[in-house]
C-alpha cells in the first residue's frame, strides 16, 4: 500500500480532524505574531482541501468509502461510529471548504481592526469542522453532535460585534433556534434508537418499518432541519443573522445552512430512503404520504420564493436584502426535492391492478436541478455578501439610501456585483441559469403554474438587484470623501467566487455530468448506501 493509498484511506477522518486540531492550536500559534493566526488558519484549510481533493478523486472513481473509528474491522451489529463518504458528501464538502477558504482570504483585511481575532479563527475552524463532520458522518447521533458544533460556533460568530445590540440579538435568536432545533433532532434520534437499538444511518435505514413513531421522528427531523436550513415559515432568524454577522462569517453561515439542507436530503433519501427512493410495489401504501409530503414541500418552497423576493424588494439594508434573496434561493432547492417526491407515479394494467411504481423522468431532472442550484446558491449569494461586505468596509454604510455612485471608486467590486446579480437572477451565460432552467423545465411538466411562479421569482430577483445596482453603484458621487479603493485580498476572495461562477456558467454540462449527476445518483442509490455498511465495504 503506497503512501497515497494510506492518505486516502484515512482521509475521511483527517478532513474533520485537521480543522479541529487547527482550532485547538490557532490561539497558541496566534501568540507568535499578529498575522500568524490568519496564515495558520489558511494553511489548515489548504491542508484539509488537499486531503479532500484526494478523497474526491477516490470517491468519484471507486464509490462510497467508509471509515470506522477505533477499529479497522467492521463487526455486526455496528457498534462503532463510522463515516460514510459518498459523492453527495464530497459535493457538499467541496462547497463548504471553498467558501471557508474564501472567507479566510476575505477576513485578512476585513477583520484586521478587531480584537479577539485568535478566537475568531478558532470559531471559524470549528465551524468548518462541524460542517465537514455533518456531511461525512454515517452515524445519526454523531450528526447531532456536529450539528451542535456548527450551531454554537456560528451563533458565537454572529454575535462577534458585541458592541452592536442588533448583532447580539441576532446571535441570541440564532442560538435559540439552533438549540431547540437540535434538541428536537435528538428527540427524534431517541425515538428511532428506542425502537431499533441502532444509531448508524445505514442500519436504521435498513430496519425502519415506517410505524407511527417513525413517521413522528421523520416529521420532527424534517421540521427541525428545515428550520435550520431556513425554509419559509421558519426563516425568520435567517435575515437577522446573515445581515448582522461580519461578512466572512456570513459566508460561513451560508455554508452551515446548506449543511442543514444536506441533513434534510440525508433524512429523506438515506434514512427514510427505503420508503422514498424505492420503487417496489410494496411501497404502494406509502405513496400517498410521499406525494403529500412532496406537495407540501412544493407549496412551502413556492411561498419561500415569493415571500423572499417580495421582502427583498422592500428592504433598504443591503445585507438584509441579499439575505431575503437567499431565502428565495433556498426555496428553489426545496422545490427540486418536492417535485421529485411528487413525480412518483403508479403504472396500472388494464384490469386496474398496480404493476409498478416509477419516478417520472422530470422528477430526477428536478432533483438534479435542486442539487445543482445548491452549489450555485452558495457561490452566488456568497459573492453578493462579499460585495456587500466590501461596501460596508469601505463606506461604513449598510443602508441603500446612503449609498450612491460607488462604481466611480470601486471598479472591480462593481464588476463582481454585476456577475453576482446576473448569476442570482439566472441570466443565460452564468451558472444560475443552468440550474434554474432544469428546475423550470421539470416543474413546468409537473404543473405549469409551478414553473411560472419559479420564473416570476427569478424575474423579480433580477428587478431587486437591478434596483440595488442603480441605487448603490450608479448616480451621483457620495458626499463622503473618505471612500478609498477596495483592498487586494478582498478582490482575490471575490475573484475566486466569480471565476467559479463564470467557469461553471460556461461549461454547465461538464459540471453536471461530473459532479451533480454522481451526487444525485449517490442520493438515489439507497441500496449501495446501506450495503456499504451492512456488507462490509471497507
Amino acid at each position, binding site marked *: 500500500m503506497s503512501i497515497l493509498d494510506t492518505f486516502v484511506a484515512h482521509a475521511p477522518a483527517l478532513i474533520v480532524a485537521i480543522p479541529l486540531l487547527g482550532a485547538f492550536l490557532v490561539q497558541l500559534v496566534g501568540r507568535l505574531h499578529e498575522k500568524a493566526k490568519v496564515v495558520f488558519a489558511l494553511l489548515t484549510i489548504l491542508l484539509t482541501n488537499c486531503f479532500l481533493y484526494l478523497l474526491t478523486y477516490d470517491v468519484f472513481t471507486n464509490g462510497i468509502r467508509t471509515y470506522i473509528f477505533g477499529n479497522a474491522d467492521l463487526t455486526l451489529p455496528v*457498534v462503532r461510529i463510522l463515516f460514510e463518504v459518498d459523492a453527495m458528501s464530497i459535493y457538499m464538502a467541496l462547497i463548504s471548504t471553498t467558501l471557508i477558504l474564501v472567507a479566510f482570504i476575505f477576513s485578512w483585511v476585513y477583520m484586521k481592526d478587531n480584537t479577539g481575532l485568535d478566537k475568531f479563527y478558532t470559531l471559524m475552524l470549528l465551524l468548518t469542522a462541524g460542517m465537514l463532520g455533518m456531511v461525512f458522518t454515517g452515524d445519526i447521533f454523531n450528526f447531532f453532535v456536529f450539528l*451542535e458544533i456548527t450551531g454554537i460556533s456560528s451563533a458565537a460568530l454572529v454575535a462577534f460585534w458585541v458592541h452592536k445590540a442588533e448583532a447580539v440579538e441576532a446571535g441570541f435568536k440564532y442560538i435559540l433556534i439552533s438549540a431547540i432545533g437540535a434538541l428536537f433532532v435528538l428527540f427524534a434520534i431517541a425515538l428511532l434508537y428506542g425502537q431499533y437499538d441502532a444509531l448508524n444511518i445505514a442500519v436504521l435505514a435498513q430496519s425502519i418499518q415506517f410505524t*407511527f413513531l417513525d413517521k413522528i421522528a421523520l416529521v420532527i427531523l424534517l421540521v427541525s432541519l428545515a428550520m435550520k436550513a431556513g425554509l419559509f415559515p421558519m426563516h425568520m432568524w435567517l435575515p437577522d443573522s446573515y445581515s448582522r454577522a461580519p461578512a466572512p462569517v456570513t459566508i460561513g453561515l451560508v455554508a452551515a445552512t446548506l449543511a442543514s439542507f444536506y441533513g434534510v436530503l440525508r433524512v429523506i433519501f438515506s434514512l427514510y430512503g427505503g420508503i422514498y427512493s424505492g420503487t417496489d410495489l410494496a411501497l404502494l401504501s406509502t405513496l400517498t404520504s410521499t406525494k403529500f409530503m412532496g406537495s407540501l414541500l412544493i407549496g412551502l418552497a413556492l411561498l419561500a420564493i415569493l415571500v423572499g423576493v417580495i421582502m427583498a424588494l422592500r428592504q433598504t439594508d443591503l445585507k438584509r436584502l441579499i439575505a431575503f434573496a437567499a431565502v428565495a434561493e433556498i426555496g428553489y432547492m426545496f422545490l427540486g426535492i418536492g417535485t421529485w417526491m411528487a413525480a412518483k407515479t403508479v403504472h396500472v394494467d388494464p384490469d386496474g391492478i398496480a404493476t409498478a411504481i416509477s419516478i417520472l423522468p422530470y422528477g430526477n431532472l428536478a432533483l438534479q436541478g435542486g442539487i445543482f442550484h445548491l452549489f450555485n446558491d452558495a457561490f452566488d449569494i456568497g459573492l453578493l455578501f462579499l460585495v456587500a461586505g466590501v461596501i460596508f468596509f469601505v463606506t461604513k454604510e449598510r443602508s441603500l439610501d446612503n449609498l450612491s455612485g460607488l462604481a466611480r471608486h470601486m471598479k472591480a467590486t462593481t464588476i463582481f456585483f454585476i456577475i453576482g446579480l446576473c448569476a442570482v437572477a439566472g441570466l443565460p451565460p452564468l451558472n444560475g441559469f443552468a440550474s434554474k432552467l432544469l428546475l423550470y423545465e421539470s416543474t413546468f411538466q409537473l404543473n405549469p403554474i409551478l414553473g411560472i411562479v419559479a420564473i416570476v421569482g427569478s424575474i423579480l430577483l433580477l428587478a431587486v438587484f437591478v434596483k440595488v445596482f442603480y441605487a448603490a453603484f450608479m448616480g451621483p458621487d457620495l458626499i463622503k470623501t473618505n471612500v478609498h479603493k477596495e483592498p487586494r485580498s478582498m478582490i482575490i476572495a471575490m475573484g475566486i467566487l466569480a471565476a467559479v461562477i463564470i467557469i461553471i456558467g460556461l461549461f454547465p454540462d461538464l459540471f453536471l455530468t461530473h459532479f451533480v449527476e454522481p451526487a444525485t445518483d449517490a442520493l438515489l442509490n439507497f441500496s449501495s448506501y446501506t450495503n456499504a455498511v451492512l456488507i462490509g465495504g471497507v
Partner: protein
Amino acid sequence: MSKQFSYRMILGAVFFTIVAVFFIFSALMMHSFGIPAESAMDDAIITGAQEETGANNAVTSVVFDFRGFDTLGEATILFTAVAGVLVLFRRLKK
C-alpha cells in the same frame, strides 16, 4: 397588545397543541418501560467492553472507545462554548 401579537399567539397555540398531541401519542406508543424493544447493539457492547477496551465500566468504554468520536465532538463543543464566551466578553479596544 397589538393585533399582530395576538395573531401570533393564536398561531403559536395551534402549533403547540399539534406538537403536544403528537408527543403524547408517541409516548403512549413507545415500548413498555423497562423492556427494551431491541438490544443487539448494547448487548454486543456489554459483552465486548472488557475484552476490547479493557474497561470494567461499560459506559466509559462507550464514551471513550466505541463512540470516542462523539466524545471528541463533545469536548469540542465545550471548547467552542469557552471560545464563544471569551469572544463575547473580550476587550473591544486594542
